[in-house]
């Protein structure tokens, strides 16, 4: 089965001299729920923008559903990939229903009006995200979290096999965080969609996601050349199931924090602990900073 998303030696930088992503090669199978984690500035949003076709790789190839992303015209790409970015308030006071319906614009009829099928899809998207109650309200009158759900509904209304999300739960309360993850998981399982989501919540990712991509900031010195192909990934990123990627050592390496880890259920819970945390003395030694090792 062709991978939904495939990167082959993709390198990208906003300036040629400083790559943000260096020679990334990975494949995301169809119907996978992938979490992208990493410290700030590692290039997570940049990767999402590459996958959305907003940015072009400087070298390497990026394929969506087997075809090079450059070969897609924008409206065609929009049928494959939908993006949920940070929530915002638009310039004009569109209502929630109007906002979600906007995703169906490429499908509108001759006069520029929506069809019955569009109504159905939008209604369903709004029900799934628990935003139907806001349908008539202007976007600006909602809370940040509620707006976030509206933008997720809009991406759902686009009805695409691949869904990209940039920190979709950052403003949501616990109930809605879990709700969104449940929703994304059900979409993955019931509809076979591919979900790629940037998140800072390691534990929820571990509970819901099949694969994790841990991105580290690209090393600045060019002397650390990429490992030859075939070897298990250069130092810049790691990909695998949560249990492999979310180890105390990896967390330490990526985020520079000590953790308290304990198995809970089928997964290991990772809890970041600083120096002054109550259980600071119970920090996992594998994640302790090397300098302080007794």
């Amino acid at each position, binding site marked *: 089965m062709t991978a939904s998303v495939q990167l082959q030696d993709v390198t990208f930088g906003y300036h040629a001299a400083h790559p943000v992503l260096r020679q990334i090669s990975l494949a995301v199978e169809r119907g996978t729920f992938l979490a992208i984690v990493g410290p700030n500035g590692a290039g997570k949003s940049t990767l999402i923008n590459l996958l959305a076709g907003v940015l072009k790789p400087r070298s390497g190839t990026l394929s969506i559903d087997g075809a090079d992303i450059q070969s897609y015209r*924008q409206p065609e790409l*929009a049928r494959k990939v939908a993006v949920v970015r940070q929530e915002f308030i638009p310039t004009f006071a569109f209502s929630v229903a109007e906002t979600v319906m906007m995703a169906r614009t490429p499908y509108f009829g001759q006069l520029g*009006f929506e069809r019955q099928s569009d109504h159905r899809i939008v209604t369903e998207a709004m029900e799934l995200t628990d935003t139907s109650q806001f349908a008539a309200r202007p976007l600006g009158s909602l809370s940040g979290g509620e707006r976030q759900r509206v933008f997720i509904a809009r991406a759902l209304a686009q009805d695409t096999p691949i869904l990209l999300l940039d920190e979709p739960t950052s403003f949501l309360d616990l109930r809605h965080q879990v709700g969104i993850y449940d929703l994304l998981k059900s979409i993955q399982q019931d509809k076979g969609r591919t979900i790629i989501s940037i998140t800072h919540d390691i534990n929820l990712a571990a509970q819901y996601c099949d694969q994790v991509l841990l991105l580290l900031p690209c090393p600045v010195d060019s002397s650390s050349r990429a490992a030859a192909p075939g070897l298990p990934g250069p130092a810049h990123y790691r990909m695998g199931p949560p249990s492999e990627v979310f180890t105390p050592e990896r967390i330490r390496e990526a985020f520079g924090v000590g953790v308290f880890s304990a198995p809970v259920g089928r997964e290991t819970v990772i809890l970041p602990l600083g120096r002054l945390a109550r259980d600071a003395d119970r920090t996992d030694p594998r994640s302790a900073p090397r300098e302080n090792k007794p």
Partner: protein
Amino acid sequence: MPRLLSPKILFLRIAAAALLLFLTMLLCSLVGTEEISLRTALTGSADALSPNPDFEILMHVRVPRIILAAIVGAALAGAGVTFQAVLRNPLADPYILGISSGAGLGAMLAVISGVNWTLWGRSPIAVFAFAGALGTVWLVWMIGRVTGKFHVTGLLLAGVVVNACFSAVIMFLTSIAKSQDVYATIFWLMGNMNEEDFFVLWAGAGAVGAGLVALFFISPQLNAISFGATDAQSIGIDVRRTQFLAFAISAFITAVAVSLSGLIGFVGLIVPHAVRLVLGPDHRQLLPLSSLVGAMFLVAADTVARVVVAPAQLPVGVITAMVGGPFFLILLMRYNKKVGWLT
């Protein structure tokens, strides 16, 4: 699904607005400095030997002028809606990308150079102003593209720069020109409604009408673009094409309006706002209705301008500003609660 526009509702609203426009035009044709009687105008003599001044005034003076005001008002309001959407700026008006200084420069050059020929019956001032307006927008577009693919900020800055340069040239020309030439240019630019031939009216109505219809067909894209270029692109909108069409068509109909009647301000800024406050931001509705309301507004404003200091006339731009301002304030206060983002 609540609060979504449907073709039927849109059609009804457009029909209602069109009817209102027609009634406004009818009413205003009966208002003027000279008393005329509709009956005399319509039933009185019509042959050349015993002229019927009532008919003359009605059909050859007032009606063409009212039609012109409607055309210009519709063009300015429609262009205003479009520029506000593409530039994502509620303070944008049709002149924001340097059209005003381009037209002004064209007009000044026409007057100073003493060029005498006419094009299709249009005076040199009108032709030069039209060319100046379009040329400026093209220049701003070219400069703006240098700053990046979709960047709206680049366009706005290019507009500011071009405006500044052209204004400097205008100031220089003003300093060396004869005072009567300067006066002539200023009065032309201040906004004026002339009584044009029906050929000019047909051509103007055709150009503006075609432009507005074309803009209507990209209204759903305008909705999406008003959220942001990257955002719209992710939904599948061809942002480049939509921006280009929006700018080109709006600039064209604005240039037509300017060449017909000088620089009339306020209509393109305030009418879209007022209609949006009442009916919401969906451009499929905002565009046609703003155009109709803009037409009504300018017809009414011109009627006031014709009458208030008789036998002289005020430049219609004075009336649009004095009437438009307070009216908009009232509207803002009454509908404030509807628009959450303003509070």
